[in-house]
């Protein structure tokens, strides 16, 4: 102890212990400490330009040119650029976290590039659907490539798992808002593949995702991607929808099984007798009333969990360990990162405890919001399950469709349009009695 004290006082003098030599004999020149630069500034503008360009091309390919092949090649290019060349970082999926941290923490400024990556795909989705998912997102492109035999996910499972992205989004935002970290980036199961590198657990997760992706189309996109949740919401309000048929739907049902992502919706069965509708309306009314209750309940639960959750923050955790150490001191023994941190805490406990208290306050708010958000998500899901959508034709679900353009060619009208089928051979709904498997 004395020795360390002596050392500390010694080293607190800025004087070096051993004066640097002046090399009077040999005139030796000191080597220069190299500082390899970070990426050049203009390269980040290139990233934004490539993003905007790809989005534009994707919209054109999906809505005007209607070409699956085009979308495929575009997504390969994006995979090469944003995935393997940019190593999955910079990415729209993680950007919401930067945005919320920028809002909540005065000392953190969001680079303009990140704002562009956050906003551009969403703006495009508000007009043209999830063009980003189809042709620009490297995560989506990689999973898309690997689809071998997409199985149909049962509707109940699809609905249940479909809320995960929203919950993960809320979790990521709440966590980022406290300044504790970016879980959406941390637990990303695709990025380790782009880097061909990563912690063992994540590599295993990545392998699992890809394996699953061979039999379930785009599992990450459908059941985890938090940015996909935002895109889904935006796409629901999109101005132009992705259309299977270039003009009219003859109800031939040929496209019914064309979508590997379960995004195709059938026409709704004719009109329903008003008598049948009454109990349904009543149930809907009750569900709508349930939503606020769920939100309040969720927020309450979230608030209760704030203190244990806040221990995930290293500063809070260190403060707690420091307090425990004060109560019942244990000998450090061998120096580990944990004990080194404890030693640091002992230098200035007040500052540590204060910042831990601040953090816990932030966690309380974040957990409250997160709990409420989970309640809202559950409530809205329940309500939406009992809503009827009136559909006259086969059409992709606005929110769920990744705009991959796979289904276009299953439509005979489209085949006529591109000249692969003479108009005379158009099947009519009358000639097809039973659904045909694509």
């Amino acid at each position, binding site marked *: 102890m004395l020795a360390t004290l002596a*050392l500390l006082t010694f*080293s*607190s003098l800025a004087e*070096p*212990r*051993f004066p*640097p*030599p002046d090399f009077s*004999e*040999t005139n*030796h020149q*000191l*080597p220069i*400490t*190299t*500082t*390899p*630069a*970070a*990426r050049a*500034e203009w390269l*980040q503008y290139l990233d934004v330009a490539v993003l905007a360009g790809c989005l534009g091309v994707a919209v054109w390919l999906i809505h005007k040119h209607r070409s699956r092949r085009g979308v495929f090649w575009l997504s390969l290019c994006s995979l090469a650029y944003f995935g393997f060349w940019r190593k999955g*970082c910079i990415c729209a999926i993680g950007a919401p*976290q*930067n*945005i919320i941290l*920028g*809002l909540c923490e005065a000392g*953190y*400024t*969001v*680079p*303009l*590039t990140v*704002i562009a990556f*956050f*906003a551009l795909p*969403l*703006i495009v989705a*508000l007009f043209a659907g999830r063009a980003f998912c189809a042709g620009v997102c490297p995560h989506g492109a990689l999973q898309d490539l690997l689809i071998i035999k997409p199985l149909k996910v049962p509707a109940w499972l699809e609905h249940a798992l479909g809320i995960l992205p929203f919950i993960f989004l809320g979790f990521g935002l709440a966590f980022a808002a406290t300044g*504790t*970290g*970016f879980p959406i*980036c941390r637990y990303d199961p695709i990025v380790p593949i782009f*880097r061909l*590198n990563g*912690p063992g657990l994540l590599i295993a997760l990545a392998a699992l995702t890809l394996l699953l992706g061979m039999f379930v189309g785009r599992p990450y996109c459908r059941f985890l991607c938090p940015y996909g949740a935002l895109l889904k919401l*935006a796409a*629901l*309000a*999109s*101005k132009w929808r992705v259309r299977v048929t270039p003009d*009219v739907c003859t109800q031939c049902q040929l496209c019914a099984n064309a979508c590997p992502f379960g995004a195709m919706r059938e026409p709704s069965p004719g009109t329903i007798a008003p008598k049948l509708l009454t109990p349904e309306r009543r149930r809907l009314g009750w569900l709508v009333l349930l939503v606020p209750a769920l939100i309040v309940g969720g927020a309450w639960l979230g608030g209760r969990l704030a203190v244990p959750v806040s221990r995930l923050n*290293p500063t809070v955790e260190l403060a707690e360990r420091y307090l425990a150490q004060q109560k019942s001191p244990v000998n450090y023994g061998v120096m580990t*990162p*944990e004990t080194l941190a404890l*030693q*640091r805490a002992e230098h200035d406990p007040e500052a540590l405890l204060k910042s831990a208290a601040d953090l816990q306050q932030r966690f309380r708010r974040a957990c409250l919001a997160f709990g409420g958000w989970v309640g809202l998500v559950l409530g809205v899901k329940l309500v939406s399950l009992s809503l009827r959508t*009136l559909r006259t034709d086969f059409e992709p679900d606005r929110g769920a469709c990744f705009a991959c353009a796979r289904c276009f060619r299953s439509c005979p009208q489209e085949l006529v349009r591109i000249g692969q089928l003479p108009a005379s051979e158009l099947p*009519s709904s009358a000639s097809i009695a039973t659904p045909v498997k694509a």
Partner: protein
Amino acid sequence: MNEQPKSDRPTTRRTFLRNGARIAAMTGLGALAGVVANRSTAEGWVWQIDPQKCLRCGNCATKCVLEQSAVKCVHAFAMCGYCNLCTGYFEPEPNALTTAAENQLCPTGAIQRSFIEDPYYEYKIDEQLCIGCAKCVEGCSRFGNGSLFLQIRHDRCVHCNECAIARTCPGDAFRRVPASQPYLLKTTHAH
């Protein structure tokens, strides 16, 4: 053909709702981007280690998302005493002051020792070999001038949105720095 008569009312109502939602979303998105952009900089951020806060714990060698950590030891030569008995180079009680591997602190032999003039020796880091374990940094900081220290090397770092080492750093030594000044080099060995 049997195109069903489109019931106009619900369609227009839904379109109306959709347009409203889109306009609301655009406004919200614009406002959000505006508020954030107001405080934003064109310049990006990169992660760096504050060498004055580094506790030489060894996490840097193992916690980086890259298998070969982006953190390496760098040497501020102007601070170095060019000692014969370098406490960053030699084991605490070396058999002899030679470059024999068993005398060296560095597990990978990444430090090159070369004679300059009596009694001074120069120590250079071979970044290909350095794994960023901070053993030499500890030796140099504790008993020497503290001229060896760790830095994220930006030609290797992939600039994770959240640095994986930062969150396990016991010294809270990682912080975001402007991309145009991406290093926090040591000039004095002060606490």
